[in-house]
C-alpha cells in the first residue's frame, strides 16, 4: 500500500513549519513579555493582546481554509481534501475556544467584565458553535462520502459568519474596540507592533504545522482502517474457501 503523494510532501516539509513556528513564537514571546513597553492606557495587560489577537485571527484563517477546502472537496471529491477539512475544523475549534478564553482574561482587567454579549463576542461564539456543529454532524453520518459532502455544505453556509465577525466592530455599537489595522491605518506603535507581528506569524505557522500533523493523522487512520477492513474481508474469503 502506498502513502498518498500529498501526505509524503507534507511529511517532508512539515519540519520547516514546526521549526519556523517555534522560532517566531520564541521571538514573539520574548518581545511581547519582556522586550516591549507597556501601553500608555492599559499598562502591562496590553501584553495579552500578543496572544489573544494571533489566536483569534488564526482561527479565522482556519475557517477560511475550511470553507475553501470544502468547496474544493465538492468540486474534486478527493478524500484527502476531506481529511484536511476535518483536521482544520477541529483545530479551528480549539483556536477559537482559546481566543475566546484569552479574550475573557483580557476583558476583566480592561473592561471590568469577563463577558458581554456585544456583536464581536457574539459572532465569535457563533463561529465556535458552527465548528462544533460541523464536527458533531460528521460523527452522525455513517457513509464517509456523505459525511464529507454534508460537512462541506455546512462549512460553506457557516462562512457568512466570517465577514460578520470582521466588520461587527465597524458596523455595530460594541464594547470591543475596532480593528487596530484597518483602512484608517495602523494604530499600534512599532514597539508594540513588532511582538504582535512575530506572534501572528508564529501562530499561523504553528496552526499550519498542526494542520499538517492532524491531516496526516486522519489520513493514516483512514488508511489503516481500510487496510484492516480489507485484511478482514480477505480473512473471510480464505475461510469460506476452505
Amino acid at each position, binding site marked *: *500500500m502506498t*502513502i498518498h503523494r500529498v501526505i509524503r510532501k507534507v511529511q517532508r516539509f512539515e519540519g520547516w513549519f514546526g521549526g519556523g513556528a*517555534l522560532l517566531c513564537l*520564541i521571538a514573539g*514571546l*520574548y518581545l511581547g*513579555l*519582556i522586550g516591549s513597553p*507597556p501601553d*500608555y*492606557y492599559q*499598562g*502591562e*495587560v496590553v*501584553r*495579552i493582546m500578543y*496572544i*489573544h489577537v494571533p*489566536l483569534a485571527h488564526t482561527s479565522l484563517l482556519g475557517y477560511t481554509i475550511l470553507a475553501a477546502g470544502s468547496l474544493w472537496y465538492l468540486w474534486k471529491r478527493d478524500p484527502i481534501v476531506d481529511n484536511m477539512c476535518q483536521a482544520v475544523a477541529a483545530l479551528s475549534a*480549539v483556536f477559537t475556544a*482559546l481566543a475566546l*478564553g*484569552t479574550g475573557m*482574561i*483580557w476583558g*476583566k*482587567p480592561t473592561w471590568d467584565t469577563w463577558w458581554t454579549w456585544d456583536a464581536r463576542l457574539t459572532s465569535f461564539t457563533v463561529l465556535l458553535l458552527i465548528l462544533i456543529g460541523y464536527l458533531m454532524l460528521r460523527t452522525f453520518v455513517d457513509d464517509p462520502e456523505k459525511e464529507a459532502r454534508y460537512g462541506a455544505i455546512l462549512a460553506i453556509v457557516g462562512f457568512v459568519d466570517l465577514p460578520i465577525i470582521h466588520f461587527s466592530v465597524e458596523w455595530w455599537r460594541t464594547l470591543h474596540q475596532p480593528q487596530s489595522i484597518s483602512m484608517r491605518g495602523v494604530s499600534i506603535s512599532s514597539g508594540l507592533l513588532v511582538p504582535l507581528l512575530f506572534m501572528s506569524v508564529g501562530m499561523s505557522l*504553528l496552526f499550519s*504545522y*498542526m494542520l499538517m*500533523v*492532524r491531516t*496526516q*493523522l486522519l489520513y*493514516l*487512520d483512514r*488508511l*489503516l482502517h481500510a*487496510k484492516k477492513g480489507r*485484511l478482514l474481508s480477505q480473512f473471510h474469503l480464505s475461510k469460506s474457501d476452505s
Partner: protein
Amino acid sequence: MTNLHRRWGGVFLVAIVFIVLTYNHYRDNLASLAPEQVKQETPAGEIRVLGMVQGGTLETRGAGEATFALLGKSATLPVHYQGPPPDNLRELKILILIGTWNADRQVFEAHDIGIVPNYGFIAGAYLLGLLPLALLLFAMTRRVHSLYEEIKASTLYEEE
C-alpha cells in the same frame, strides 16, 4: 528515548528557561506594602505602597504635582506626589505609589506611579493560550508516529 521525545524535551526546557527569565524580569514589581503597614512599621528608604485614591481628596497642582489620601483596608495615607505627569490618576483608582515615607511630617512623598501587579491575568492568558496547543500537538505527533509504526508493521500482510 526517541527523536520525538528529545524534540519535546527541548521545547519543555525552552519553556522553563522562559518562565524563569520572565519571572525574574518582573519580580521587583510584585512586592508592595499596604498603607496600614507603612503607618505601623515606618519603613525607611524607597518603598512601594498599594492602595486606592480616596474619593474627594485628589487635588492637582500643575502637571506633575498632586496631593491625595491613599486608602487601605484600615488606614489612609496622606500622599504628596511630585513626578512625571500622572496620566491616569483619578479618584477611586487603585495604584502603586513609589516613594518614601516621611515619618516626621506623616506624609508619603511619592515620585512615581507603578503598575498594579495584575500579572496574574497576563500569565493566565499565556498559559491558557499556549499550554493546550502544546499538549494537543504532542498528543497528535505521538499518535502519527504510532500510526506509521503500525502501518509499517502491517505491510507484512500486505506483501502477498
